[in-house]
Structures are given as C-alpha cells and as structure tokens.
C-alpha cells in the first residue's frame, strides 16, 4: 500500500469530510467581518464577550445533541430540561434552603434523570426519538413549573452571599468570561469521548446501521440509553450556566432553545440522517448563530430578522451538505 503524503491527506480531508467545517468556519469569518464593517461598534471586546455570553447554554446542549443526532436520533427536550433543571435547583435554593453547591448537583441530576427517561422510552420501549423527546419536552416544562409553583426562582447575584457562583460559572469580577472556559473544557472532553472511546465509536456506528451493530454482538439498546442520558447531562450543565447567566429563572420557558442547538449542529455538518458529525463543527455552528444574533442587533434591525437569517443559514448549510454528498457519490460511482 502506498502512503499518501501529508499534504495530500490534508487536502483530501478538507475537500471531503472536512469540507462542511471549512465552509462553516469561512461563513463565521465572513459574517464577523461583514458585521464589523456594517454594524455599529461590532469589532469590540464587549461585542465579542456578548457573543460568547449568548453561546454558553446553546453550546452545552448542542454538545449532547451532536451525540444524539449522530445516532440518527433527536432530542427535542433539551431546551425545556435546561430551564426546568435550573428551576428545580432554584426551588432547592430559594424554598428548601439547600446550600448552593448541593443545588447545582441537583440541577445536573435533574438533567440526567430526564435524559435517562428519554433513553428508556427510546432504547428500551422503542419509541421514535422525535415523539419520545417531544413528550419529555412538554412533561419537563410542566412538572418543573409545578414544582416551582409557577414562581420565578432566583440564583445569587454577584453581590449576594453565594456570589462566587456567578463569578465561577459566568464572569469574573474583572469580566473574564468563565462560561467560555467551562464550555471549552467540556467541548474538549466531549471531543475525546466522541472520537477516542467506545461510546463515541458506537454512536457513529449506531447512526450508520443499528441492526448491523446489534448483530455484531453489541447491546445497542443500553448504549442508546447512555447516549440520551449524556444529552440530559449536558442539558443539566447548560441549566447551571443558564442560571449563572440570567439569575432569574422563569417557569414555562425554554422551549425553542433546542432549535438553536439543532441548527448549530446542522450548520456544523452533523447529518440528521445519522452517522456523520463533529463537535468542532457544532461549536463553529453555535458561534455562527450567535455572531448572527449579535451582528443583526448591532445593525439595529428588529429581532425578527435574526430568526429569519438563522433560518437562511440552516437551509444553506443543509443544501451545501446535500451537494457535497451528491458530488462524493459521483466521483466514486
């Protein structure tokens, strides 16, 4: 076997499986420069920080979603679970009087619980992921609001007693974006998990051909339960960051967050038909969405234009992917 040179390898990667990432990254740069020129005061540290600030919780749920989508599944509950778990943590803090540290653990546990529930419905009982997680979306929205007695729950602000919570998970007193640090840390861990462990390998394999994986003697059901639980875990983490960012958690919100995360995955080249995807792509996708959001704001356009343009970017990303797959098929017949 002749070994291709490194340059050839890089070239074939960038034009093949890496193309979507290259395109997403170029889109990110183009958008950033575009808004820098046409937006008011866009090239500033404040704007950059604001882009990051709005990226955290979408980023966390998009990490978990990337795993789920690669298995050719979907998790529509992550948005409401993010807010719902933060709400339950807030109940523990405000009403039950738990110490803040314990409350944060509870937030993550609530996320894990909802994820595990999704996993049982999908892995064990064989419900279609779309239906199961749609159900969980409504259930989490409802039950968490009931537990909170439909009251807004407050997390400590920076001047309050447990103010360290905000400086550790959102921003230091000097303004350093801690959320970005946490997101980067967990993204790196997740990349290792997806690309270098059994869980990650089975995630791709299940997305490609679940029956072939089962017939290779692998307990696909249990792995699916684990993957949905992982998605719930990331929704829980997202809940902590969400609480740190906003401090006040309103019941019966959070639906719609998952749509931004799904859009981020798709922009980053993760295929909804499964088997294909990357976390680096997803992270770029999250940034694309938030650059777009902040950029359109800096052009003082009404907020509805954000939604419109995010839609345009999602459709364009999927269209590019379809063209890429078609061309790849043509080359190899």
């Amino acid at each position: 076997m002749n070994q291709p040179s490194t340059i050839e390898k890089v070239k074939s990667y960038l034009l093949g499986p890496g193309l979507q990432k290259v395109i997403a990254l170029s889109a990110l740069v183009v958008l950033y420069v575009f808004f820098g020129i046409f937006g008011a005061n866009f090239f500033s540290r404040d704007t950059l920080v604001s882009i990051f600030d709005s990226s955290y919780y979408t980023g966390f749920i998009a990490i978990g979603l990337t795993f789920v989508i690669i298995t050719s599944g979907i998790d529509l509950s992550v948005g409401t679970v993010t807010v719902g778990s933060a709400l339950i943590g807030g109940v523990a803090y405000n009403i039950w009087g738990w110490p803040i540290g314990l409350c944060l653990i509870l937030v993550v546990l609530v996320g894990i619980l909802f994820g595990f529930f999704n996993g049982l419905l999908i892995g064990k009982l064989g419900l279609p992921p779309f239906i199961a997680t749609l159900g969980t979306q409504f259930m989490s929205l409802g039950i968490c609001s009931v537990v909170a007695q439909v009251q807004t729950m407050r997390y400590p602000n920076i001047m309050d007693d447990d103010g360290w919570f905000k400086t550790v998970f959102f921003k230091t007193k000097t303004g350093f974006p801690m959320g970005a640090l946490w997101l980067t840390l967990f993204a790196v861990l997740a990349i290792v998990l997806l690309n270098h462990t059994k869980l990650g390998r089975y995630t791709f394999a299940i997305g490609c051909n679940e029956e072939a994986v089962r017939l290779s003697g692998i307990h696909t059901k249990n792995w699916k339960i684990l993957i949905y639980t992982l998605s719930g875990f990331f929704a829980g983490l997202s809940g902590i960051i969400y609480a740190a960012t906003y401090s006040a958690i309103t019941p019966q919100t959070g639906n719609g967050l998952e749509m931004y995360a799904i859009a981020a995955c798709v922009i980053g080249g993760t295929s909804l038909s499964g088997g294909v995807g990357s976390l680096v792509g997803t992270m770029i996708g999250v940034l694309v969405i938030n650059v777009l959001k902040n950029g359109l704001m800096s052009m003082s356009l009404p907020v509805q234009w954000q939604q419109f343009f995010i839609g345009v970017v999602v459709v364009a990303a999927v269209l590019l992917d379809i063209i890429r797959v078609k061309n790849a098929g043509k080359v190899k017949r």
Partner: protein
Amino acid sequence: MSDTNKVFQDILQMKDIDVMFPGVHALNRCSFTLRNGEIHALVGENGAGKSTLMKVLTGIYTDYEGEIIFNNQTVRFNSVKDAQLKGISIVHQELNLLNHLTVAQNIFIGRESEGFFLNDKIINEKTNELIGQFRINIKPTDKISSLSVGKLQMVEIARAMSYPNTKILILDEPTAALSDKETVELFEKIRELKAKGIAVIFISHRMAELKKIADRITVLRDGEYVGTAEAGSCEIPNIIRMMVGRTILQEPKTASAVLPDAPVVLEARNLVSPVIKDVSFQLRKGEILGFAGLVGAGRTEVMRLIFCADPKASGEVLINGKPVKMKLPQDAVSNGIGYLSEDRKRFGLMLRLSLLDNVILGSIDKLISRGLIRGKKSQEVVNHYISELKIKTPSLRQLVQFLSGGNQQKVVVAKWLLMDTDILIFDEPTRGIDVGAKSEIYDLMNTLAAEGKSIIMISSELSEILRMSDRIIVMSEGRKSGELAISEASQEKIMELATQFIGEAH
C-alpha cells in the same frame, strides 16, 4: 439492412458509447446490438459496465459520447420518461414499488388521470387488462405489501409493459431474489413477451439460466465490449473466460477431510419458531457444513435463531457438548458464534464508516487502554487483516461503501476473525460478488476451516454447495429434509430433497 437479413433486423444499435465519471472510465467505446424480438443476455463481472450501459439507454445518464440508433433513428433520451414513452422500459434489480399503495396505483403512478381528480376505477380496469394479458394471479386492488417477491416482479414487468409503445424491456437481475419455481414462471412470461415481438435485455449472474432463456449473450469487461455469442452453441466456461479473461475451474469436492469422529462444536436440538419446524443438526470442528435449499426454505431463519437475532419458540443449542442459555446476539458472540448475513449492506456493514471502524466494531474492548481506543494498535491489527485477507483498498480510512462487493465481504470476515469466533455462519457468502472474487472467498473459507474454525455455509447455488461442503443439510419448507455426505451428494439428490415438502398442506 439487406432483405435476406430481415428476420434478424436490429431494433437497437448502441455504437461506441463512452462514459467518463471523475476518475473512472465507466464505458470505453462500448457497443451493443439488439435484434427485433430476441432475448439478449448481458453479462460481465460487477463493475463491467452493464448497469451504466443500461442507464445510458434508459435516459438516466444523459452525459455520454456515441450514438444510439433505435428503430432506424438516431435518438438521445433526456429522461427516463422520455425513454419509456418512446418504447424502452427497465425493471431495476431493487424493486421500486410503493408498499402501501395498490397494484393499480403503482402501475399508473405518475399517469393517474388526465384531470385533477383521481379515478381509481379507470386504472383498475386498465390494470385488469394488463394482468389478464400476463395471466398473473393478483387483483388490481391488492396492496403491494401483501405480495410475494415473485409477484412483485410481475407487477414491475406489467408496469413496464403498460407503456403502449414498449419495444424493449430491460430486466436487471430479475431472478436474484426468486425461488426456482418463480423463476420458471418468470421465464414463461418473458417468452410470451418475445412472441409478441418485444426485445428483452436480460442481465444476470447465473450462467445456467442464461442458456435456458437467452438467444444471444453479450459479454462486457471493464467497460468494454468483449463479444457476442449464440446462447445455443456456446459453452458456459467460455463465457466465464470472456468475462474474467481467464479460466476458473469449478470442481466439486469428492471427499471430506474431516474425520467422522471430530468433536461436535455446535449442536442444535429441535429448534422451533413460527417458520421453523423442529430442526436439529450437528457441526463438527474444522468442517464446512453446507445448507442447501430453495429460497425461503428457512435456512437463514434457522441461523438467526441460533445467533439469537430472532427469538425462538423452543429448542436447545449446545456449544462443545454443553447446553447454553443465549438470549441476545451478544450471548451468541461470547459463545464464539459469528454470523455473516446474506445482506451485507443491511445487516453487516456500516457503509458510511471507514474500513477500520467496520473491522474493529465488535472488538473495541481489546483495543482500549484507560478508556481510550488505541489508534496505532487498531491500525496495526486492521492492516494485518488487510494483507492476510488480501483486501483491496487505497487505505484503511476508505469508506466501506466505495469498496467492491468481494472486498466488503472480506471486511465482514475480518470483523468476525478479530472477534475470535470459532464458529462462522456464512449466509450466501458470494451473493453479488463477481466471479473472480468468488474463488478468493472460497479459498479463504477453506483456509479458515483448515485452521480449525467450523463453518456453516448457506448457499442457493448448487455448484457452490458441492464445491465447498464436507457435509450437506437440505431444508425445505422450514424443515430439515435430509443430510448428505459430500461423497454421496449430487445436484439431483439435493434438488429432490429441496422440493420434498413443497405443495404439502401446512
């Protein structure tokens, strides 16, 4: 065309057809001639260009060089519909029918009615006419999902013939999924079409049936025209030689090398499921046990029971003489059983993943240290199997979907070898694999058996059964109808056993 040749008037001439795909010269000045009302077989190894040539003819590929003369006119079809309306229809190997619609709705899909509203009555009547012509035993209102594969094939042909101008009908491997009985029926219909003056192009891998049905045989190799022969006067080995450019000997095994007292590694006792009726057998160490029978005899189902891919109603499986409780495929794997499905793409491979990922799928535990998959070690292991099994691939990162059928099969074999299973069940191991790669798979199976692996081989090709097996079990209608030592086996004996229970009340 001179008058003396009138009988043999050509309805179609494809001259110097040239098709380039990026990186592949799919057709290289390829020619093909079809006479009026003949049955013309088109053969060649996988990738020889048969499908590409037919796709040019039916308007699927419009980007080609060369000339097509149809009915004495130069034509260039720009779409499938264009070709159909002018008189050329194709029945693809993978049937394209809509499961939840009726026969009539399928036949007239895209041509339902002139106006906006549907009129099922009219298309039902038209369909009834077609069905009557072909004497197919179905109703226009039958749901597609309720029909057998053989019937579906007839529906496809009826659909092709429902275009009033149809002069040429192309059948792409129509018998691949049919039982022998259904094949005989199909051939009758094809001859009827011929009698009506329809020219039929028949693509198949099965040499024996070509001699039965075809008037002439054209061979393609590597995108080029090799030659055309009269089916009546040519010999099958000659055709195969034209296809591969070399001679392949297919000599049956005469005696088994496995001693009759070799230890029994696998024993099935009284297996029962909704389709399997009380099947028992033994597999000995180092043996290749052939499972013969017609399509649908229940051979795959037996193996899926043993592998726990489907639940069994009752029965027992013994490994090395001890009864084992197995419920899921992973239990079968941990007891050393490997199953290589007849449908590699659906049940064996992850087409969009790399060769490496496919091979290590079941053995990741061996390649892990401290929770992480060792890339170097995985590559070493997979490279070892690439050279051992002679897998042809540009790299171990190559996506499996771009490998040929034979190499895909070797990837599946490598996966099971790495999982260290001692009992390998090969279900139709050479289905869809070209002649050259077949003998490589045979060699591989012989080597494995000689190394002490025990093999069960399901095959619908009698020549394959007789060539490979040490012992043969024949199944019919979900039952074991007989067992033959290779020294006493013959095609006739196997066929007799394979048809034993057919026609009996269930």
